[in-house]
């Protein structure tokens, strides 16, 4: 097994285990959560959090699970993983001095770059799908009468993946032109944390990137049983543009 494959598997495994470790107690706690929803609502200090609890209450288990898995876990941990996986992709090679070695083999640059992008993207997206696929089984263990369709969870995972891929690709582009993975990582993390923070502020919430992957969106996907292409397609196009820009920048990059 090659070093790159091994690294990919470790990353994917780490993200899968972390997401699942957050998901299992959250899903199993659903009956208690549902029963104490009113008390919890009263304890919430700000409106955004109270609104979220209302959405859980109205959409039932599906809304709650979407909130836990996608809005909370994937939008925070998944985004952090997207930034961490991409920040060092090329800049990491430059930083450790191995870029020249990486490029000196008789392999086209575009292939090297796209392979690296693809490996990171897979390590990012696969755990989202895998953990989301366990939700219907987990809800069955939670001693509730509600059911969640696997197809709905996979559609939500696809929607979430489109956002994560866009963040990953933007960071990947920065890595393709930069040489300091730490600076790129911190800058992108700051930007995404800022975006997540403004989601919670009523007046500016519409400027947040995470409006594209919040609880109402996922509830709508579950209810309609189809992807919201008005969001997914632009996100995929943004990823494509960032990948193309990375390829063009990398073509002329000096080791």
């Amino acid at each position, binding site marked *: 097994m*090659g*070093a790159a494959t091994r690294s990919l598997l470790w990353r994917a495994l780490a993200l899968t285990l972390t997401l699942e470790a957050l998901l299992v107690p959250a899903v199993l706690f659903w009956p208690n959560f549902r029963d104490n929803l009113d008390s919890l609502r009263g304890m919430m200090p700000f409106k955004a959090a109270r609104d979220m609890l209302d959405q859980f209450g109205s959409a039932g288990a599906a809304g709650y699970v979407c909130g836990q898995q996608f809005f909370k876990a994937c939008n925070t941990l998944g985004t952090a993983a997207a930034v961490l996986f991409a920040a060092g992709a090329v800049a990491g090679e430059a930083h450790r001095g191995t870029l*020249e*070695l990486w490029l*000196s083999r*008789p392999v*086209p*640059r575009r292939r090297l770059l796209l392979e690296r992008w693809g490996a990171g993207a897979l390590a990012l997206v696969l755990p989202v799908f895998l953990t989301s696929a366990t939700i219907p089984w987990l809800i069955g263990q939670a001693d509730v009468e509600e059911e969640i369709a696997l197809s709905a969870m996979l559609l939500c995972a696809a929607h979430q993946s489109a956002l994560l891929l866009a963040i990953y690709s933007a960071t990947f582009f920065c890595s393709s032109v930069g040489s300091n993975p730490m600076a790129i990582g911190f800058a992108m993390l700051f930007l995404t944390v800022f975006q997540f923070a403004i989601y919670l502020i009523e007046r500016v919430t519409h400027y947040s990137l995470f409006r594209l992957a919040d609880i109402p969106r996922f509830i709508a996907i579950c209810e309609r049983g189809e992807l919201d292409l008005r969001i997914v397609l632009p996100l995929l196009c943004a990823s494509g543009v960032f990948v193309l820009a990375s390829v063009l920048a990398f073509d*002329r990059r000096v*080791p």
Partner: protein
Amino acid sequence: MPQVLSTASDRKIQVREISRRFGPKVALHPTSFEVGPGGVTALLGPNGSGKSTLLRCIVGLVRPDSGSVTLDGVELSGDGTAVRRRTTFAPGEISLYTELRGREHLSWLLRGREREAVAVAESLADALGLPLDHRVRTYSHGMKRQLLFCAAMAPRVPVRILDEPSEGLDPSRRGAILELIERDAARGTTILLSSHHLGEVDRASSRMLFLHQGRLVRSEDSAGVRAQAARTLRLDYGSALEIPERAAAILAVLEGLGGQGKGPSPGPVRAVVRGRRAIVTLPEGDPRALLALIFAQRDLPPPESVEYGQLSLAELYRDVYGVEAV
């Protein structure tokens, strides 16, 4: 080391007017030369003279701003993959993936090469005593250099480009590596290497290219060096040359011996002081014919000793760069 070269292969490196600048700094002025087929050509020059930039341009790691490169009949274009398929490149800077084992690293380095290259590289590494089952982080600087060297020498290619292949190696390892380079060149491979070790260049290379501040300032082959040696006399004047005024007077007399039908030289005699010696070079002809004139000069002290027909690479280096080579 298997070596099967295609009959269509011309095994030449042709560099035509390539230049490269990094921001305001010109790393390489328009440079042209041709190397091969076969033989070892050494690229010499002080740090920052443009050696590594030139080598990187040839293999397509750095795009030249102008000019063209043809390697083994293939024009450098795009990202240079077609050129890199016909050559191997051992970078001068050693930064390896230290988390990998030596064996894994060799396979990684040899991606895109024929399958047998890994086995060949492993056998070379075994011969050099590299512990391939250990992680690269446990390797010394010299061991890492040898690992890169093994990967560069293993594939069946008509041209190899080695950036300081023996830097950081002890004399015995350096000898082993030079032997492998010589053996490979004897099979017909064209090798272009850069080096700071004049001893190894003297031993292994049949031609030398001197770079200075991004310009190719001189190209010498072994025959040229021998010919220059045959036109050179070394006159040891002892402590007389340590006094600047005295040295200047001696040089003036020596340079006055050339041309104007006075001596054997049709042109001016060139004389320089190196330590206790005056080096006298004729543009052509046998300088020994000057000896009678030198000894006949009343205003010249008789030299304590005279040497003829020797020219070390260190002298050539000093001649080009004006600094003492070590």
